């Protein structure tokens, strides 16, 4: 009986440790997915703002056709990169291209004072910056979750659980900070 207890007790402890570690991995993955859903929601909101912004700029600056087409094309590529089958790096590059296009689009307003003072344009710019602020916050939360998950996935003894169950590596979402580029320099 004592021998049996001496063998069974460590086994039970190991099993309990395994279950706790597994459950924590599952909770972390759920948290990563939830924060990623936040990013996707905010990215979608940004994609939705672009057509209105392009049309407003077109009303004042028809001669800037090249920039307008560049932004429209970048938006189409960013939308095409949203599905989960597309690698996260490709999605990040598509979003960077859209950020760059939007930066050029907003720079046009400097040459057109009437556009700059247009209430609709100012409101769209404000919405864009607020959306990009939220993207930045959601991206940092996502990356923090991924960093914590990856730390556990590689640490002893939780790496044993990750190896046995087959928890896969998650990649961080690294993009340029669009809000920093698009926020007006003077306060509203």
């Amino acid at each position, binding site marked *: 009986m004592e021998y049996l207890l001496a063998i069974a007790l460590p086994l039970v402890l190991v099993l309990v440790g395994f279950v706790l570690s597994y459950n924590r991995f599952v909770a972390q993955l759920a948290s990563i997915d939830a924060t990623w859903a936040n990013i996707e929601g905010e990215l979608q909101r940004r994609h939705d703002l672009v057509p209105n912004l392009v049309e407003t700029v077109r009303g004042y600056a028809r001669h800037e056709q090249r920039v307008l087409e560049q932004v429209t094309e970048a938006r189409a590529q960013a939308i095409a990169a949203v599905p989960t089958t597309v690698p996260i790096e490709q999605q990040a590059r598509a979003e960077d291209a859209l950020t760059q296009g939007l930066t050029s689009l907003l720079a046009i307003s400097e040459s057109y004072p009437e556009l700059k003072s247009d209430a609709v344009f100012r409101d769209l710019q404000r919405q864009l910056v607020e959306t990009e602020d939220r993207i930045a916050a959601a991206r940092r*939360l996502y990356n923090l979750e991924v960093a914590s998950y990856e730390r556990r996935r590689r640490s002893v003894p939780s790496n044993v659980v990750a190896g046995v169950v087959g928890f896969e590596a998650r990649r961080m979402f690294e993009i340029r900070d669009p809000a920093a580029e698009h926020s007006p320099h003077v306060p509203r």
Partner: protein
Amino acid sequence: MAPEVSSTVDAGSVVLSDRATHLLLAVTGSDGPSWLPWLMVGLFGVVMAISWTIQRHQRRELHEALNRFVDRHDGWHLQAWPCGVHADQLVGRFEATPRGDRRYGVESAVGGPAEMEISGATVQCQVACFVWFHERRRTQRSRGRRGRTTYDRRTELVAMCQLPVHTHRAVSIRPESPLGRVGLSRSGQQLESEAFNRRFRVEGRDRALVVTLLDAGLQELLAADYGERGIELSDDLLVLSGEPTHRDRSLAGIAQTYPAILQDLTRLVRSIPPPFWRALAFEGPTPDTAPPPPPSPQDR
């Protein structure tokens, strides 16, 4: 009959006097000259008088120092309610203003309008510096006797700013516990900077707001220069607690720390990233955002 009464009274007074002498001798534990107990009483009285005089002098010196400090800032005055907030509204609301076990309150409070840089714009806010005091119960137990309860008076230096926006979810950034500093019992929200995580315990229900507040620049600043300080946000109040490293020697008492903590508060507000203010729908320095003066500032 009258002389008898008189002699009785005299005899009684002699007896009482002898008893008092014996009592004093017993207290002093000495069999020395009879005037020694009276000397002890006299010395005790002198010490008490000196102590009272010193305390009175320190109080007057502090009062003068506080007046000199408020004279440096337009519109500042001594306050009973910092930023117009009563002590009962502050108690327990921040970790820097605990309830304690008996008395609590605000003392040496000064405040008034100050220009703060918020999201690149200069905004006038109500600011106050004060000392929060509270008393903690301490029971000394000895074998075979009932415990003796005393109260320790504890103080916390606080600088408070009334912001032009409301943070609906409170945020608290407090020094991490010794165990947390070595990574054993870390609670709260972890951020990118390990140096910051080692020094601070961050708590806030709105994680996105916390992340927006603590960008890389603010994490670096806090870890470098605000190591032992507490920063808390609740509604429209920002509280910075803890002792600053610098002292203004031209002032006296706790007032020596006020210029430095006010400077630290101004720097902290300036360093809060613009996305945080945008997230709170800060609309810029319009007349509506300037907070009204405290409702009933009472000059002391």
